[in-house]
């Protein structure tokens, strides 16, 4: 799996994915939401970074207290056109002020959705296997020049500020 960071740097994933029945190993791991719910009383106290993969049907209002201190939350795109995780990402960043790593994983992690993913607050991307990384990275790098009418959640949004001062017709 190729992991791309928000800044366009591609590299190996420091996290390893742990199956629900696999014994805990050393180093950073990602566990399923199911496992986290069942074992969080013990996993909570492990020194190693433990990230959680959240299904896109999970209601964050209920889940947030169990996620607040996680270093990584991975959101899923089970289909190219299934946009539920976009709302989860916005809620995590905007409502719950989640400041850890927010990772996109699944069939929508492609260059044609890169700008939207970035815009909704994702900052790492598990690039889909068939995707050429250069196209995706190019989209991340040029996303700053893309024009939007909405507020953005990516950290650098100078152009949005420009729009806000410039005209303010909508809510920008």
């Amino acid at each position: 799996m190729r992991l791309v960071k928000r800044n366009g740097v591609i590299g190996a994933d420091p996290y390893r994915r742990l199956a629900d029945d696999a014994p805990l190993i050393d180093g950073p791991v990602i566990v399923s939401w199911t496992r986290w719910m069942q074992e969080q009383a013990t996993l909570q106290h492990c020194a190693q970074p433990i990230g959680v993969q959240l299904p896109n049907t999970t209601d964050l209002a209920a889940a947030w207290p169990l996620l607040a201190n996680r270093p990584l939350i991975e959101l899923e795109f089970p289909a190219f056109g299934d946009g539920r995780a976009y709302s989860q990402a916005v809620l995590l960043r905007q409502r719950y002020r989640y400041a850890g790593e927010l990772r996109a994983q699944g069939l929508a992690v492609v260059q044609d959705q890169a700008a939207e993913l970035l815009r909704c607050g994702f900052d790492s991307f598990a690039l889909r296997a068939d995707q050429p990384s250069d196209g995706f990275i190019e989209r991340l790098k040029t996303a700053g020049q893309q024009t939007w009418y909405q507020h953005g959640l990516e950290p650098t949004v100078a152009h949005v500020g420009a729009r806000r001062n410039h005209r303010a017709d909508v809510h920008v």
Partner: protein
Amino acid sequence: MYQYDEYDQRLVDQRVAQFRDQTRRFLAGELPEDEFRALRLRNGLYLQRFAPMLRIAVPYGLLSSTQLRMLARIARTYDKGYGHFTTRQNLQFNWPRLEQVPDILADLASVQMHAIQTSGNCIRNITADHLAGVAADELVDPRPYCEITRQWATFHPEFNWLPRKFKIAFSSSTTDRAATQVHDIGVHIVRSEVGELGYSIYVGGGLGRMPMLAHCIRPFLPEADLLSYLEAVLRIYNRLGRRDNIHRARIKILVKELGPERFTELVEAEWAQIDRAAFALSAEALTRMRAHFTAPAYAADAAADPRFDAAVRADRAFAAFVKRNVRAHRVDGYKVVFVSLKAPGVAPGDITAEQMDRVAALADRYSFGEVRATHDQNLVLADVAQSDVHAVWLALRDAGLATPNIGLLTDLICCPGLDFCSLANAGSIGVAADINDRFDALDHLYDIGELKLKMSGCMNGCGHHSVGHIGILGVDKKGEEWYQVTLGGSAENDASLGDRTGPSFSRAQIADAVERIIAVYLEQRRSEDEAFLACYRRIGMAPFKARLYAEEAVA
């Protein structure tokens, strides 16, 4: 009308470049077909029965003459010389070539147009009253709010991959001319009891195979809070709308399954947590947007000109046109002139490049350079001085655009049907032509009066059959085209869904069935003042059913 600034222009230009790249990658085999499908639909491009179909956005139905001329040029250059206005105030071309679509989009961008979000599971073009700004029964001009909503909805990063398409319509008048109650969200601009401006929000209406009327989930929303409330509705829908079955994915199903009360609770709870201040429409922003939609420079002495009344008295054909195709304007001395795209023998909504150019020229000369598209698939010249109406009529008549049938039976609305659409079960244009033939004796029509006949070639209901006073739905029965008939639908303030008459009719029977329905109405109505819908609501289905399914009817 709204004018792009550099920011808007850059946004549209970037989209053209992005789609050009996506098309190139698809043709080079680098982009999977199902993904290109989702991406091209967001740019208005369908692959249809015979060729691609490109649907171009006409935001809330408003076009400049320059834009209409560009549409004519595109029709000539890339298509077969005509286009088709749809029931959502957009324009479709039926014969463009896939490889040329990026060029068409670039041409459109040069006149501040695009095909963004005219299809696909995202927020579609915003529609509104085609008489916005000129209607006498209007509270305020809805177009500034439509444009604000259009911008908010364009490439909304959170709501670009919804369970299903999402349609929003605005109305701000006593008579709802935008069919708002059959939209995913209908926004009625209203005043509160203490006189504050705001909105009533309707959610969950829709046509298609399960037609439903929208529920009012908030009787009054303050003016500043439009976008935060739309965010709340869309977020609930994006999170909870069904994605397991395409036929149950519209928000109307979510509203139905949760129940309107529970759905409303969820939206209100979400809205309570949204940072409303961040989305609030400031008085300054509203003022700036309203400045795009100011009234043109009407002549103060227009009402003094006697030529209009004189022409009506002198010319019976002109008088017939005025009676049917000309409406009152809020400004004394001006008229609203309807351009009929329902001439006999022409598919409803079709217009040739030559006709587009002629309408553009008339708009420039007589109507401040603007044209509107209606959801009934006609055009409107909204600001014609009464002294000019006769000249406009002569020019329209010469162009085949003056059929005096607005609001009448032959002003039927109709989807492209089996002739063009890959979804359709049955032809609709041919049936429209049959009905036209049978009722083209205009005197007969005048007797029938106001009657909205709406026809769709399949369950998807693009022809709005469920809300037709008479609705016709094409169905497939063992490979043959049959037609179900409904009576009593309406998309206006008194919105209702039509009732099925009973078993469907064959292609050969359907025009006759419509004639029988009309005959019952003409016998039963109390006077010429009782329109079809009122009569149906009074006498009910029984007399129509009896006539339709009498022995000889099925023979």
